[in-house]
């Protein structure tokens, strides 16, 4: 039984960590702010919850599992709100999502194209 738990939690941890790397890549590589928000939310949802599940499976005491669950609940509510706040502030700040590279990351757009 504990071997199965170890294998399952190891897989969860590994996939969660890989999703974190994918999210960081998305935040770096994507052309403009609003697409980077997609990249950033991969970490908040996929990576964070998989890592937390991997850790809950390894938790030896009940209290540790409860705390990890609470972290998951907090992230569940704050992550989308933060992403929404960033997108809302950017829209008000004058960034337009419909033409990527229009006024954000213009030099990067040329850099990528060149």
């Amino acid at each position, binding site marked *: 039984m504990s071997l199965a738990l170890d294998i399952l939690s190891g897989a969860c941890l590994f996939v969660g960590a890989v999703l974190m790397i994918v999210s960081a890549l998305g935040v770096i590589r994507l052309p403009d702010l609003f697409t980077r928000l997609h990249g950033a939310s991969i970490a908040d949802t996929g990576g964070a919850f998989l890592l937390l599940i991997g850790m809950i499976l390894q938790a030896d005491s009940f209290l540790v599992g409860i705390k990890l669950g609470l972290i998951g609940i907090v992230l569940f509510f704050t992550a989308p709100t933060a992403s929404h706040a960033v997108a809302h*502030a950017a829209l008000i700040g004058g960034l337009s999502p419909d033409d990527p590279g229009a006024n954000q990351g213009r030099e990067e757009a040329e850099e990528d194209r060149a």
Partner: protein
Amino acid sequence: MFSLATLLVVIAMAMTLIRAVRGPTPYDRILAVNVHGTMTVLLIALAGFLTDRPDFLDLSLAYALLNFVGTLAALKFFKHGHLGEEQ
């Protein structure tokens, strides 16, 4: 297994810092710092498991809330130019 996950999360955090430094608009920087904060939350939890100290989880819970409030404060400052204190 924990050390591999911790290493990958640290690499991901370093990568988000690249966007925080390079980000042309201030909103890119706030987004990068927000993602960096979420990864710090998980890094503290992983460190708690690595060093077998369960009290690290309280730190990561507190930091999750702090990160959220910090992101909203920075956004409010960029939207209104001040944080609501009367001139």
